[in-house]
């Protein structure tokens, strides 16, 4: 028996082609466990739906681990050979008896027991998780809790097992791999590491600051205090897609000099001093790295509308600032990357002409890596470490003034700020407007039916939006996307963030709904 455990992910909407692979597995007899507060397509088709309250991920996983340990379903051989810190985890798991977990999560104990049984008894079990796990103030710990579960059952390091994080954007993997992170140089080489710095200093012929920079959210915080002076924003729309928009608008208004490069005018370009035209993916050569670390070609089909692609613009800007960059083609940039980034060491345009390669690919004759951690984990000593974690809950929880939890996310037809999909004919016709998904129970209490206009308010602001009554929402939870410029959902979302990663709590904030 094979098992898929889908956690905080709605792939039929957000990753439709991944959902086809999951559906294929279901047809072949795999069992499906879904952890999600929303009754998604996958939740409806699941063998077990763990309908947890938003923000209770750690309590739920601790409960699953407790059931597994209680019944002796753990993989003792794997735990002793490949992990450390099991005793701490065991002690912590023991604190989460099902009576307590039922209260914290709202999930019936029978479901938790059945999910634990399925996952631990699987020949191969894979956990697929999405932003429902990480976009919480405990996001990093939520992901660690998932790792605990996989390690307890030894479901990692073999094909068709492990943990797959579904990446939300086309090249979020590659963007993280190749340097735009404040504490790491390209290839996750720490700026604090003198040897790594030395390598890049030699290649780039410049001295690199050993001091980690600020995260994007921190740069904006500094902007709003008047402490940050110059910002270049490439292809991003924080004035629509970041949380607590009033804070973001103040930040973008306060920075002395703002340059934004994008293909369309957005909420963010309003604040710019200089707007530079971007080139779409159809207008340039390059590579994207997908969620399974596969480096694939992007090819120019038409000329850049404004004459230059971003790689050319950055090179010219840098040269004008006294640091010359000279590349004739993006393949030359990839060759430079390969020479400095060991996990991309064997990648070249010639090698990925026909089919992409999955990193780590350290040398020109290395075939790439499909399965990670087959022998060792990427820690000193190669053992995985259990981390004992406690339930903390969301940064903002419902109360008498704001009694509902707003979950935000995507629908299949649109993408993020909607600047591309709203301009694609047909899509704009069939999905023209924002709708708030309300459960039948809450709709009755509020005397709201589908199509009614409602006011949604949080402690930070309010928006007006049409209601859609659906059992996709459970009582107490409502759902909105952030695709539409005329309903800026992120006015409502909160400033709570994960203290480690800085990721905002998009998946839970307290709101009130009034019929208009």
């Amino acid at each position, binding site marked *: 028996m094979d098992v898929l455990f889908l956690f905080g992910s709605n792939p039929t909407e957000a990753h439709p082609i991944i959902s086809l692979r999951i559906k294929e597995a279901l047809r072949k007899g795999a069992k499906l466990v879904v952890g999600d507060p929303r009754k998604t397509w996958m939740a409806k088709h699941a063998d077990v739906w763990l309908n947890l309250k938003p923000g209770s991920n750690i309590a739920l996983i601790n409960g699953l681990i407790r059931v597994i340990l209680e019944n002796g379903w753990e993989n003792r051989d794997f735990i002793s050979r490949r992990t450390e810190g099991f005793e701490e985890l065991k002690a912590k798991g023991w604190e989460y008896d099902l009576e307590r977990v039922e209260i914290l999560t709202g999930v019936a104990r029978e479901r938790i027991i059945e999910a634990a049984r399925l996952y631990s008894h699987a020949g191969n079990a894979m956990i697929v998780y999405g932003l429902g796990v990480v976009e919480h103030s405990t996001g990093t710990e939520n992901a660690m809790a998932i790792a605990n579960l996989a390690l307890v059952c030894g479901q990692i390091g073999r094909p068709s097992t492990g943990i797959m994080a579904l990446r939300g954007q086309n090249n979020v993997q590659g963007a993280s791999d190749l340097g735009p992170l404040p504490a790491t140089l390209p290839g996750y080489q720490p700026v604090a590491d003198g040897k790594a710095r030395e390598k890049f200093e030699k290649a780039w012929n410049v001295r690199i600051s050993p001091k980690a920079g600020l995260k994007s959210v921190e740069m904006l915080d500094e902007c709003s205090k008047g402490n940050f002076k110059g910002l270049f924003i490439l292809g991003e729309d924080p004035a629509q897609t970041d949380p607590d928009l009033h804070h973001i608008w103040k930040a973008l208004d306060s920075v002395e000099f703002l340059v934004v490069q994008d293909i369309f005018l957005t909420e963010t370009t309003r604040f710019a001093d200089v707007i530079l035209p971007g080139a779409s993916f159809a207008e340039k050569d390059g590579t994207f790295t997908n969620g399974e670390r596969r480096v694939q070609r992007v090819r120019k089909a038409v000329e850049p509308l404004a004459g230059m692609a971003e790689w050319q613009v950055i090179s010219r800007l840098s040269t004008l600032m006294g640091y010359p960059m000279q590349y004739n083609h993006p393949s030359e940039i990839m060759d430079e990357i390969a020479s400095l980034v060991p996990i991309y060491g064997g990648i070249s345009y010639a090698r990925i002409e026909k089919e992409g390669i999955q990193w780590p690919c350290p040398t020109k004759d290395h075939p790439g890596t499909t399965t990670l951690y087959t022998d060792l984990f990427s820690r000193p000593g190669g053992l995985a470490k259990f981390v004992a974690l406690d339930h903390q809950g969301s940064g903002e929880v419902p109360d008498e003034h704001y009694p509902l939890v707003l979950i935000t996310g995507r629908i299949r037809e649109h993408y993020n700020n909607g600047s591309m999909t709203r*301009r694609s004919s047909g899509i704009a016709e069939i999905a023209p407007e924002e709708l708030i998904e309300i459960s039948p129970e809450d709709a009755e209490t509020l005397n709201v039916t589908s199509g009614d206009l409602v006011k949604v308010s949080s402690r930070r602001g309010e928006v007006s939006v049409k209601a859609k009554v659906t059992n996709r929402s459970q009582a107490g939870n409502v759902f909105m996307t952030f695709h539409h410029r005329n309903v800026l959902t992120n006015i409502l979302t909160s400033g709570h963030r994960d203290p480690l990663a800085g990721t905002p709590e998009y998946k839970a904030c307290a709101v009130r709904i009034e019929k208009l």
Partner: protein
Amino acid sequence: MNSRVTINGINIIVKGEKTILAVCREAGIHIPTLCHDERLEPYGGCRLCLVEIKGTARPLAACTTPVQDGMEISTESETLTRLRRTTLSLILSNHPGDCMCCEKAGDCDLQELAYMYNIEPGEFAGEKWDLPVREDNPFITYEPNKCILCARCARICNEVVMAETIAITGRGFYAMPDTAFRKARSLENCEFCGQCVSACPTGALTDRKGRGRGRSLGMKKVKTTCSYCGTGCNFYLNVKDNRVVKVTSDYDAPVNKGNLCIKGRYGYDFIHSPDRIKTPLIKRDGVFHEATWDEALELTAKKFKELVEKHGPEKVGGFSSSRCTNEENYLLSKWVRCAIGSNNVDNCARV
């Protein structure tokens, strides 16, 4: 387990369980098919892939017959050609002969096979469908008269997408793929992934947005990677006169194997949207003015240099983009670290 078979007199060793069709395709032996699609379960509907097996009384469908050790298979013979020609003639007896203005001409499996087997139209007379073209939604045009009932559309919709939008409805001569109660496609009953279009071997289902914008043979096809979510689907941008007019499947793509969703297949018009920013813009007194690249980049370089000199590099930084390429992300981080001099560079992974 390996088996040894002979195909058209050539000895072939087959690893594992495979159909005759799969073995022939791997060996480069052409067998005509209309109902077969690598993404679907074998169907055995069109009867064009018939092959002869020594010791078997009648021809068998290669797509549904597994190879067995010792099989001696012939994929071509006078009998097989006669059978295939009859089948094709029967299909064409209820098919409009309007190839000259059909959207699918040049990329149509039926047209190609009719040419290959030299089928004269009108061999079998009889009743013909005469149904109107259906364009009840923005994405998919349905010309039922061109349907050959291979059921690939209904099968991909139910087997692969599990959307259950279309099924074969009606009986006998009146059987055809359709939505429940022939309702117009809307988000209530359809995902608009266009998988049915990608599976259709004739002009029955076509991409409405690309119709009349150029036929397959006149297109430059550029293989690339989708720019929406992080799955990494490959497809072909179909380009004519420096414009992307259509997206078509790449059936060899390692991740998506020809499958696409609504955004991948139909979310491309933004490329040529009149709203695109065409020149740099500089804000003066609260109003944006068009500028040249030189003006905009010189101003940007000058301001950033001034700010670094006045406030130090720690007060300046950049956001890179998960929407841009690896090469551009690398360069932006290099620009912040080398031209600005701080590590204030991040990308949108955390938000």
